[in-house]
């Protein structure tokens, strides 16, 4: 039997999620081989990992945790985890064009098995709570990226054609709105000296590199 109950785990995450000094411990809980996931079923592991991801949205998303978020968007198949990852991404202090590619890939990964998920309380399912969906969370993150999403506008337009019929009318409206938000957002101003940009593997300072 696992050493921790899910309720105990959720309480720990809640505690770590309010303390910026313990961000590293929170990030460590995202390791797939962390002992806290031993002898856990798939559904329980999803609930637990999703809750850790969600904790970063308010705490702020450090670089090491960002790697897990992007990996989930790139390869994940579960609607709850992808929704949590997209939600957590908005905890980053800096937006980057590279993030948009991961978000679009996540739409492709999840669109055939999206689900209404509840991100408000630990382990909640949308019986008594209102919910969101993985694709909606991704679209919200794309809107958050604003001008940094311009590089994926062609892919978003292709998705909007909806050839495979995966999107409902309301979701298509939201996709259309997202495209408009990205298009109409002001282009990024010239990078300031201390600006740091995520290039897919790490942060670098373009200004320091003379770009």
């Amino acid at each position, binding site marked *: *039997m696992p050493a921790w109950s899910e309720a105990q785990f959720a309480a720990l995450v809640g505690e770590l999620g309010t303390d910026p000094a313990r961000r590293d411990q929170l990030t460590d809980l995202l390791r797939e081989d962390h002992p806290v996931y031993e*002898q*856990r*079923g*798939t*559904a*329980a592991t*999803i*609930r637990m990992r999703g809750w850790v991801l969600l904790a970063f949205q308010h705490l702020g998303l450090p670089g090491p945790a960002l790697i897990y978020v992007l990996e989930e968007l790139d390869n994940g198949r579960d*609607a*709850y985890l992808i929704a949590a990852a997209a939600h957590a991404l908005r905890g980053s202090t800096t937006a980057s064009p590279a993030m948009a590619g991961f978000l679009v890939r996540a739409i492709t990964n999840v*669109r*055939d*098995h*999206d*689900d*209404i998920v509840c991100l408000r309380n630990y*382990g909640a*399912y*949308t*019986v008594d709570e209102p*919910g969101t*969906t993985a694709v909606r969370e991704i679209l919200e993150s794309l809107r958050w990226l604003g001008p940094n999403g311009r590089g994926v506008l062609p892919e978003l337009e292709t998705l909007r054609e*909806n050839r*495979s*019929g*995966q*999107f*409902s*009318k*309301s*979701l298509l409206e939201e996709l259309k709105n997202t495209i408009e938000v990205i298009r109409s957002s002001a282009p990024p101003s010239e990078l300031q000296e201390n600006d740091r940009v995520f290039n897919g593997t790490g942060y670098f300072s373009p200004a320091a590199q003379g770009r």
Partner: protein
Amino acid sequence: MSAKKSKAPAKKQAAAKASAGSAKMSRSASQRIHALSRMGGDFCEDTEKLQGVLNTIKDTAAPLPVRMTALQTMLSASFSAPNFNACRPDFLATLRSVAADKNMQIRERVLGILSREQDGFAQQVLMEGLQDPAKALLPPEKALQLLSYDIHADAYPLARKIVQNPPNEAAKREALRLLAADAGSAPMFEKLLKNKKEAVDVRQLSAAALNSLAPEKLQQHARKIVLDKSEGDQLKATSLTAITHFADEAAMAKDNALYKGVDKLRTAHSSPALKRVSKQFLAKYSR
């Protein structure tokens, strides 16, 4: 989204007209069932029609056959609708909302659908019901059966407890079936198979489990059972079927003792089933 047809045949126009009022309470149940079963797979494109079907599922005042047909309509659309994935989130949410319905048939159908999606909510409520019968939405044997759709549902510890202390025989059998995917349970199945005091159907179930988990062990025990005069015909027939279809053919071709033993079964006062599988074995390994 599929535009499909330039003009709808008369049948489809009638179906569209009939389905438009499917949510109206004044219609008879049979009319509603007729309308629901002729909606066609593309109703997911129409928000109003879709909500009508989902509301019918949730409508506890609607006759049960109507609600079950509405469920069938949605499920059927999942096989055929070009844009079913667009309404899948709403469908799953609707299913979760009626998982605790007062009608057992609805609960069983809905939790079955969710379990086949390996839905975490369904697994959670089923396991809670096994741990606390006061919370059970389904009988334990049904809950165990549905949990077995996902070998990663973490139901093995519960299933082992139920095998040790079953609330009824059906629950014990379903717990054993669930554990048949657990490599760690192979020794338990071997013990059950060898136990001549165990019920025949449990021993047969154990043979099937062992054939998957430890096929060489099953072949050894199956051979012993076939040659053991004290064993009954039913278990002998199961064992010989396993040997005939899944054994190492080269080893069987050389096993003269087994061949002679099976030949005796063919001519002895064996059951028709045992004689039949004996003939199959002898034909396959004819000398």
